[in-house]
């Protein structure tokens, strides 16, 4: 088989919990020896209940959180701790993920400018990015609070795609949206995936959304991957996994 695009090997993460003032500390094993391989062009879903470790895994894959143990590999090369331009993230709450004091144009152009990806005019660059996610380029001068929830979600996606990532990690990216807007965003992600050949890692607690968008599904429970299955098989999952 080809070299995988991304590989996470034996990732563990523990948090230290202080139970209270001067009380004995205990540790919470958020992730326990998790390995995950993503091939180019794949669409993989991670499902699990709150506290199963799916968001922690996402943050480690993107490089926002250094794992307690384990390594990340990008096209066979070991990745150092920290973010990588090839892996970008779309967050659940676009309102809190976007700097409220920056205009849309700055939100989208800042990272690619630093990475030297803007060769011609910056406003043209931003207009292209906005068009790609179905937004009017006129919105470039707006602040996040002047956008609707659906528009903010699209800006969050445009921001992530502006540095030309190959892997897009979406952490509950549609969970806060109304069903009609959610449908628009899911259609957009499908379309962008086809057009740009993106690899998609989609984290959600909504089995319906994951079944719709993903070919392969990883089920997490108590910090472990307990099952990997094709999305079509998801309906037959043991329901005990979703009971605490």
């Amino acid at each position, binding site marked *: 088989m080809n070299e995988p695009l991304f590989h996470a090997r034996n990732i563990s993460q523990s948090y230290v919990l202080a139970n209270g003032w001067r009380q004995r500390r205990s540790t919470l094993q958020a992730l326990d020896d998790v390995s995950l391989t993503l091939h180019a062009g794949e669409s993989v879903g991670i499902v699990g*209940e*709150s*506290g199963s470790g799916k968001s922690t895994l996402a943050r480690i894959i993107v490089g926002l959180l250094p794992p307690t143990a384990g390594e990340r590999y990008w096209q066979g090369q070991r990745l150092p701790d920290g973010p990588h331009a090839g892996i970008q993230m779309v967050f659940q709450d676009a309102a809190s993920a976007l700097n409220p004091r920056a205009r849309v144009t700055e939100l989208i152009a800042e990272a690619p400018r630093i990475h030297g990806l803007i060769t011609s005019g910056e406003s043209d660059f931003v207009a292209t990015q906005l068009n790609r996610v179905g937004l009017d380029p006129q919105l470039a001068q707006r602040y996040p609070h002047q956008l*609707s*929830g*659906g528009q903010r979600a699209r800006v969050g996606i445009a921001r992530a795609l502006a540095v030309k990532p190959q892997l897009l990690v979406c952490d509950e990216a549609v969970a806060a949206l*109304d*069903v*009609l*807007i*959610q*449908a*628009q965003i*899911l*259609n957009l992600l*499908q379309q962008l995936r086809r057009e740009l050949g993106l690899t998609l890692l989609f984290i959600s*607690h*909504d*089995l*319906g*959304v994951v*079944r*719709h*968008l993903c070919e392969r599904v990883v089920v997490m429970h108590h910090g472990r991957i307990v099952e990997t299955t094709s*999305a*079509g098989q998801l309906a037959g999952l043991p329901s005990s996994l*979703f*009971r*605490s």
Partner: protein
Amino acid sequence: MSVLDVKDLTIHIGDTKSPAHAVDSVSLHIERGEVVALVGESGSGKTLTGLAIAGLLDPPLRRVGGEITLLGENLSALPESQLRRRRGDRLAMVFQDPMATLNPVLRIETQLVETIRAHRNVGRNAARDEALAMLDEVGITLPAQRLRAYPHELSGGMRQRVAIGAALINRPALLIADEPTTALDVTLQAQILALIDQYRRDHGTAVLWITHDLGVAAGFADRVLVMYAGQIVESGPCARVLQAPAHPYTAALLGAIPGSVPPGTPLATLPGQPPGLSPPPEGCRFRARCPRAAAACIAAPPQVATGEARTVRCFFPLVTPP
């Protein structure tokens, strides 16, 4: 007699010259032990309807018309001091974020005991026993320990259970629940729904369940009311409406749910956005986005019965009257 009867509720936002007509002539009733789901998108007016019933509208929100009757008593005519006696007693409300309901610096015990003693002449120890029993009833493990806890020491699901316990503790006739499961994952959501369902069976509580999630409404509610741009556009028994929607908007909501089409194929969406409401558009408010819109839709369609206890606000419904 219905537990709740709302007639022509109308709510405006903002100044009197050009207010937003956020809720327009909404009428609904809920019987004893019945669960009614009020479904709509953000901004459709569903939350304002719930707040108005509980008498919780503050400026710039104004109830400019309509009558709210709870157990035969006209709430809309009551002064705030009297309304305060009803809230938390005959009617109670649960919100999406339990931390907005619970006081972060008071123990659970203090908050529950206070809620009981504010409405009933019960001794402190008896109230504490009641609070303990209620925590047990809403499925909280180790209730005696949790009673001594502060809200931040509880998980999100547990906080919501406490908030529901606080709402139910004086055995209200009507529970208004505004998206109480939206922030919870599917497991917890199912548990909370089962909890409320059991409670209304045991005590005959009427429930107004406000949600944007038709899936939640489907498995839980007896009747569903669909709101769009401040108006109820469709109502009827839940199973019938979701199986064969009459209003094109209801059909669009159902078509946008993943699972309604084969995986990977585009989901049906609607063009555009809900209209601005200051002032609302003339005629049918859904017309600009409607695939069935025609010249007749320039006039406002009335809410008409279509049989089977259903109503629809559309000149060209997808289900024709028998």
